């Protein structure tokens, strides 16, 4: 699984990155978590607010700092 955290250098983006790593770790998932600060990627996914969570090319959430538990349920759902 490939998880991308989109958003350029904002504090909330770093928070989402952190809680995603936690979620992946605690659920024992085989996933690669990448931080992408490139604006082109943001345009490509058509996101209007950051941070955004993209799983295998699908936008799962944007503009929110999710808790690890919420991320796990998103990944499973």
């Amino acid at each position, binding site marked *: 699984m490939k998880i991308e955290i989109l958003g350029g250098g904002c504090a909330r983006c770093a928070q989402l990155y952190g809680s995603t790593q936690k979620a992946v770790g605690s659920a024992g998932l085989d996933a690669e978590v990448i931080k992408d600060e490139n604006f082109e990627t943001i345009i490509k996914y058509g996101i209007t607010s950051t941070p*955004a969570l993209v799983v295998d090319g699908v936008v799962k959430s944007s503009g929110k700092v999710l808790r690890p538990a919420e991320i796990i349920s998103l990944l499973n759902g």
Partner: protein
Amino acid sequence: MVIFSWLADFIAYRLFHLDEATRLGEAVHFFIEDVTKIYVLLVLMIYVISFLRAGLNTDKVRSYLSGKHRFAGYTIAAGFGAVTPFCSCSSIPLFLGFTSARIPLGITMAFLITSPMINEVALVLLGSLLGLKFMIIYTVTGLIAGIAGGAFIDLIRAERLLMPIGRQALAYGEAGAASIASQELKRKLTGMQRHQFAVEEFTTIFKRIWIWVLLGVGLGAFLHGYIPEGYLENFLSGGDWWSVPAAVVVGIPLYANASGIIPAAQSLIAKGLPVGTTLAFMMSVVAASFPEFTMLRQVMKPKLLLIFFLMLLVFFTLAGWLFNILI
């Protein structure tokens, strides 16, 4: 509102044994009354507004705005800007996301101008500190600023003045490549979900602003107790035409949100700063800031930033002059 005055009486005069007739007593009383009143109103308002706007996000605003007729678009965008919470750290993704959905630049700018100016926090502060009339004037002026600003940006065909990344977003839109595919676009919320959202919203907003309200009202209390009424009139009488543009030029680069600047504005008015000048200063502080300009610099060429600055300068100056004459 009597209850807050009573509470302040109790704390300042009974608990702290301050003398009502002293400056310190008066300042402390003012501080306690205003802070408690504002905090309670904020709790109520943020909860109610968040409950109502739960589920509304920038993705939905975008899908609603795309394909709208221009003139309806400016008005609707300014209205959405008013009810959607905004963080200047989000202005770039918002700008790119809207542009790539073929929303004209001016409509995006209408949203970006109004969003930081009008929100429930600003309304509570304006209404409780400066009165209903002032609150309405501020809101209407803010909406017009967004609509007029947006229309002007399109009039000068500002797309020419975008940085490469901004043009790329435009190109995406023209190719129809931007996917407006959000999971949450069609989601219906239950009452419980709305409640949870409202509580979460309230916690984050309150955490961010409580200190600014405290500082703003504190400054206000100091001015209230220690600076004589009408003191500022000696320096900045409404007769000096240049005082309004000067206040705007100083205000635009300054970075503060509505929660800090409005309580201080109340005292400035009481001390004799003309209403129009204060309004112009407040709006220019809240609407734009130096950090926001550096952010927008990534998608706009310097020339467009300069135009944006001048546009705000002219508009807020005109508004300030108008209200100095009218009020």
